[in-house]
């Protein structure tokens, strides 16, 4: 629960000043004219710091209920705040705090945080490892926890049949299918930190320049709100146009769906269309009745063939609690643990605390575009996937508004030829490699999906390497931006690794090396668009599970699951535990972190469970679908 406690935090100003401070939590932090102050009352312009079971948490200013764990520096104005101790400081520490404690590295096992890049741009995760010796209870030290111990632990024991851990889209898709299978809401619990299942995904979209009206990289029939994929988003959008008298637009979309991907650009749904549809489906299946807002601390087997998850919960009044959730069928869908940085950029940020000029595309970095819109400047772009395309599109828009924005695209190497698989080859233009989605389409359910599932572990790695890789969508507007930028000279491509990064008169000076030939660049900003961390070791709950149960890993170092997405080593009598999403990347199914991939996984899980949740077929399915059409609860 949220407690009144004290913590030592370290504050570092952009100009290099450093101070340490003992703060009594909860408290607010406010910056006025560069001066930092700590206040007792929560006001509109304060970042609110709280203690949750030993974990320092922060809520952004304004009346925003989001809260994140502080395990990496949190930017507050021109200051960076870091916790110095993972445990609480007691009153004695306050009195004798004296000289600042040496800076300790952010405790990576303390929490899972994507980024804390300033108020309003907070990312959060539902996952955190135990940091408080009082919770999870001591019985969690055992591999198999006796139910009798749980009952006397003093924490509420909540039992259900299906337990979804994560609370994001992976959980939602599974829970949705369970409801379609006829499972009542009181048999399902989903635990997550966000109120809506797509909250985190939407935040990542916004930061990576996919505003609600922009289109995602997902196809028409990948509908997280509809297990049947019919009607797909394309048909829905076309019918909506026709319904509102926009016949040509509607027919144009139908033509696009017919001609894609050879004679028309591949259709992709708008972000807001997807989010709105999930809202409708969430309401239909009673999502809010199944969701427990909370942070997952640990997962263990129980001695009666089930599983128990220790959860720090958050009450509607803002206070915290603790609970133990027990169920025989568990699905783990914890998502990406963090943003990924190239090593050189990570080192720069750690050394200089420069969170302003060196940013990750998935962080809130609107200040970059605001600055460029006012003064122009040079941006070095790293990465050449879909996010890099979106960043370049945004930079082109800022440039079109009238300022002199220049982009230097620093690519690690040349790309003159697209990847090959059999006789097929991907297209390449200006060193960008294209494919409609991040995997060939047949990976979702065609012959490539079958081939990968049947392949040996070693062969799987080869297949995944051939089919995957960094690619972007073959969008005409993006190709035109690149071509126009190259022709007009405001966009240029350089090759090589970054060998040096320095501050030179307020600008960044980069030295790139390509096969021994060095070149120097001057830039105002660096945007790292190389993606998100997908290693399970970045996620303390998963790392704990792997360690406790010696779970096998796949060749890519992620959770080894069966084709039914089961964590076989976690089987517990009749109890079954499954994992979906990016933590299973590198296994028997390639597109694990896509909408359709999550639906595929949900179907496979329910099929493998057989009895408790039977996927409807034939007329039963048609009836369930008709209920979906009418918006009637399953």
């Amino acid at each position, binding site marked *: 629960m949220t407690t009144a406690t004290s913590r030592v935090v370290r504050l570092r100003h952009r100009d290099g000043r450093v101070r340490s401070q003992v703060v009594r939590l909860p408290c607010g932090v406010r910056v006025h004219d560069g001066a930092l102050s700590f206040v007792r009352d929560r006001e509109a312009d304060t970042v609110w710091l709280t203690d949750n079971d030993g974990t320092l948490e922060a809520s952004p200013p304004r009346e925003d209920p989001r809260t994140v764990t502080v395990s990496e520096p949190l930017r507050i104005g021109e200051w960076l705040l870091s916790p110095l101790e993972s445990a609480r400081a007691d009153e004695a520490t306050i009195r004798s705090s004296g000289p600042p404690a040496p800076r300790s590295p952010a405790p990576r096992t303390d929490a899972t945080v994507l980024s804390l890049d300033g108020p309003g741009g907070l990312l959060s995760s539902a996952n955190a490892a135990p940091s408080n010796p009082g919770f999870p209870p001591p019985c969690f030290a055992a591999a198999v926890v006796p139910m009798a111990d749980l009952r006397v632990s003093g924490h509420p024991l909540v039992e259900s049949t299906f337990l979804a851990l994560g609370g994001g889209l992976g959980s939602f898709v599974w829970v949705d299918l369970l409801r379609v299978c006829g499972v009542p809401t009181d048999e399902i619990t989903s635990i997550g930190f966000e109120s809506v299942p797509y909250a985190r995904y939407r935040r990542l979209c916004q930061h990576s320049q996919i505003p609600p009206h922009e289109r995602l990289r997902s196809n028409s029939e990948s509908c997280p709100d509809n297990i049947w994929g*019919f009607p797909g988003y394309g048909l829905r959008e076309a019918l909506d146009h026709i319904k509102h008298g926009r016949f040509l637009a509607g027919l144009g979309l139908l033509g696009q769906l017919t001609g894609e991907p050879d004679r028309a650009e591949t259709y992709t749904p708008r972000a807001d269309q997807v989010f709105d549809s999930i809202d409708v489906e969430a309401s239909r299946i009673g999502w809010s009745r199944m969701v427990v807002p909370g942070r997952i601390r640990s997962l263990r087997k129980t001695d009666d063939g089930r599983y128990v998850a220790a959860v720090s919960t958050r009450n509607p009044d803002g206070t915290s609690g603790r609970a133990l959730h027990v169920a025989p069928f568990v699905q783990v869908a914890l998502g990406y643990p963090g943003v990924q940085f190239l090593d050189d950029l990570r080192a720069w940020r750690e050394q200089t605390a420069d969170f302003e000029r060196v940013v990750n595309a998935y962080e809130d970095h609107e200040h970059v575009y605001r600055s460029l819109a006012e003064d122009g400047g040079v941006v070095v772009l790293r990465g050449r996937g879909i996010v890099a395309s979106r960043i370049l599109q945004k930079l082109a828009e800022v440039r079109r508004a009238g300022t002199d924005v220049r982009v230097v695209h620093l690519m690690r190497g040349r790309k003159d030829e697209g990847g090959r698989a059999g006789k*097929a080859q991907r297209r390449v233009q200006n060193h960008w490699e294209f494919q409609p989605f991040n995997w060939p389409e047949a990976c979702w359910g065609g012959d490539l999906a079958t081939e990968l599932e049947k392949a040996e572990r070693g062969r799987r790695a080869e297949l995944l390497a051939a089919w995957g890789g960094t690619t972007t969508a073959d969008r005409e507007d993006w190709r035109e931006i690149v071509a126009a930028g190259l022709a007009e000279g405001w966009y240029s491509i350089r090759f090589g690794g970054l060998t040096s990064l320095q501050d030179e008169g307020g600008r960044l000076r980069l030295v790139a090396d390509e096969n021994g030939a060095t070149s120097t660049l001057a830039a105002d900003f660096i945007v790292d668009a190389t993606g998100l961390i997908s290693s399970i070791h970045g996620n303390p709950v998963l790392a704990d599970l792997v360690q406790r149960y010696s779970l096998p890993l796949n060749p890519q170092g992620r959770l080894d699951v069966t084709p039914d997405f089961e964590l076989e080593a976690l089987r517990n009598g009749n109890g079954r535990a499954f994992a979906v999403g990016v933590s299973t990347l590198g296994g028997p199914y390639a597109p694990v972190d896509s909408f359709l991939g999550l639906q595929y996984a949900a179907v496979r899980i329910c099929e493998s469970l057989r009895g408790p949740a039977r996927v409807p077929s034939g007329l039963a399915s048609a009836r369930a679908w008709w209920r979906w059409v009418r918006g009637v609860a399953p």
Partner: protein
Amino acid sequence: MTPTLAGRWQTRAFLLVLVGIPVSLPFCLIAGLVPLGLLLCTGAIGALLDVYYDRVQRSRWDHDWPVHRQIRAGVLEFAALLFGLFGCCACSLPLGPAVLKLGPMAAIVVPVHWWSVWLISFLFVQGPMRALFPRWRFRGGRLL
């Protein structure tokens, strides 16, 4: 949905029975058993062409089978059927004499029947098939 060869055959057989036969029955009132014979021929020709489609599909990067290819496949199958029918008529092979018996009406009944079956099957695959069999699209069109 990206079909596999097994998925193509199973879906084709299912559609022939579920869509083909009911749609053919009204035409049988005019043309006797000719529509059912055409249906059988279409099934056989289509099953053979599926092997070709599968090869084409595998040569594509995405191993996909977009909608415009489905339409082109329909045109190809109809052309193959007509070619076969002319052969049957010329050589008096089964179905040839029955079609000839229809006289000029055959020029209307054959295409209208065939395209009716194709169009309803095509639309069925785009939607109702998915509503009936949610796993179908995840299994490359396999029903079994």
